[in-house]
């Protein structure tokens, strides 16, 4: 009797936890296995992202004499030239992004409406400069835009202007050169998102009484906004850290963030100052990305439909 009840109790206990231990250890083994598979990737992320950024941050905390201090960060508030560089960088990024939207949106729209064959041919012309070195393209712009460059020579020969236009070695030159380089970064994501817009949605718009212009405004444009936003973010963030084109096209008059970093490290060998600039640029970029993410997230959950 007692044996029977004991064995019954044992059986009940076993029913609830049948192989439970073996299953738990199997789950643990699988988790460890997955971690092992991930480890090369994790190591790479650690070695090429976490360590250098940590080192950068560490370096930024030491002044020129090697003393731990916040002098490198204090400079951002004390030196007017730093503030000016910061403002210039944002100004260039805004203007270039704006110019990219101005030229890129109609271009992407045209590409998205063309028949497939024509679109892929035109797309090659968008991507082709993308494959050419930034340095080569920037020098090409210098040749075209400088005082005795192609454009000024033609305009003077044609008698349109008497004096050469200041197109290079200034703000205008930086904007022209950077816009050309950044344009594909805006057009490609925008084109991709425009291609996903359902033709039937546009037909439905017209069918329901919206003129072609109203259909564009109320349906096509809102549906293209996510693509436009990601293009804008990419261009804006790339502009913030851009070096080659402003350095060459600015003629020393347009000092951007990355150029100041280069000065600090290679000209003055002040690694702390350069590192602090890098940390601030990184922080600002991350903050902007977060802001865009938040705005887009709010959009997606139906802010548009409230209008």
């Amino acid at each position, binding site marked *: 009797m007692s044996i029977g009840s004991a064995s019954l109790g044992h059986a009940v206990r076993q029913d609830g936890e049948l192989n439970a231990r073996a299953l738990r250890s199997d789950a643990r083994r699988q988790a460890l296995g997955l971690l092992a598979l991930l480890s090369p990737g994790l190591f790479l992320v650690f070695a090429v992202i976490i360590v250098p950024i940590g080192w950068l941050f560490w370096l930024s905390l030491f002044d020129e004499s090697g003393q731990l201090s916040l002098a490198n960060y204090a400079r951002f508030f004390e030196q007017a030239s730093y503030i000016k560089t910061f403002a210039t960088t944002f100004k260039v990024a805004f203007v270039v992004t704006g110019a990219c939207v101005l030229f890129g949106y109609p271009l992407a729209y045209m590409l998205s409406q063309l028949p497939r064959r024509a679109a892929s041919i035109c797309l090659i012309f968008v991507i082709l400069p993308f494959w050419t070195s930034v340095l080569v393209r920037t020098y090409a712009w210098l040749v075209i835009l400088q005082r005795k460059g192609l454009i000024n020579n033609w305009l003077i020969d044609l008698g349109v202007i008497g004096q050469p236009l200041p197109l290079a070695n200034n703000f205008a030159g930086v904007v022209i050169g950077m816009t050309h380089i950044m344009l594909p970064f805006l057009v490609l994501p925008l084109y991709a998102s425009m291609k996903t817009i359902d033709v*039937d949605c546009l037909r439905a*718009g017209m069918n*329901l009484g919206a003129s072609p212009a109203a259909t564009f405004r109320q*349906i096509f444009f809102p*549906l293209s906004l996510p693509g436009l936003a990601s293009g804008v973010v990419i261009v804006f963030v790339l502009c913030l850290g851009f070096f080659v084109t402003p350095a060459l096209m600015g003629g020393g008059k347009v000092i951007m963030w990355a150029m100041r970093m280069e000065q600090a490290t290679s000209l003055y060998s002040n690694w702390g100052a350069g590192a602090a600039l890098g940390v601030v640029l990184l922080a600002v970029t991350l903050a902007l990305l977060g802001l865009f993410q938040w705005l887009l997230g709010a959009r997606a959950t139906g802010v548009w439909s409230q209008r």
Partner: protein
Amino acid sequence: MLLSLAPSALPIGIHGIEKRFGALSILSDLSLDVAAGEFLTLLGPSGSGKTTLLMILAGFVRANAGSIKVGGEEIITMPPHKRNIGMVFQNYALFPHMNVFHNIAFPLKQRRVSAAETAERVERALDLVQLKGLGERRVDQLSGGQRQRVALARAIVFEPRIVLMDEPLSALDKGLREHMQIELRNLHRRLGMTTVYVTHDQREAITMSDRIAVMNAGRIEQIDQPEVLYARPKTKFVAGFIGESNFIPVECRNGSVWYEDRKLRMNDPAPSAGRHLMVVRPEKLRLLADADQARPVNALPATVGDVIYQGDSFICYATLRDGRQVTLRDYCRSDVLAKLPAPGEPITLGIDAQDVVLVTDQ
């Protein structure tokens, strides 16, 4: 009546429509009249031109020639947004960046209807398609059937003269599709809008339509009421496309119709001459007992190939004397079930004189 569409329902006159893509002719000299308030279905296999015709009606595709008159007014060159025609798209084409309310309010917004009236009419339309209270839902939060209803509400909320539907139920599963067929038909009866419906599903067409236009290779093969189309198909294509058919070759001589050496009894006048096919629906064939032979039916001797029991009904595959396979279907009434033949057994198939339908053998 919630939305008063009936008074504004208009007839459509389609005349001489031609549509070519390069050398390929999609529609050739197509003419069709749709009565005011009628539910007309364009039925045909893919590539028959039915969707192209619908796109021409909506104004998304330009015809090469022809005329479309709505209530006597020519609209063939009118841009789509001025046509005032509601359309339900195959994939619904709801605006993903708007909620249900704004989707349905969209056509009213274009027509500058006041906010108060818009709210009221959207509410009524939602009520009509049984989606009351779902106005604030996002489109991606809706099920397939609900999206279908929103698309329908959006297409009728502005009281269009005509409603076009392009295979609107094809994305739904079978049960829901059959439910929506009945619902759409009832909605049409209530609102009375002139409706042109496109489908490749013959059962759907038969269930819903006042009339069906069967299309094939850019032409209308036959346009008739569903029961006429089924019982009296005019061409082999129609007979084959709608329902199941046995085709039995027959010959016309001396003003009567002959199957092998038997003269067929039929109610329709016999064609004068030529090779024809007798169209026999599986359920019109009967198993004849010896006693039935005297009745005025056409008797066809055959041999049973196989008998398949399907619960409510059975299918009998039989071989006629000329080696042609025919299919017979009947319900499993006790008297029929008791006399079910076995494979290999000789039987006599009967077809009533009134059920003999001939089409030309092309």
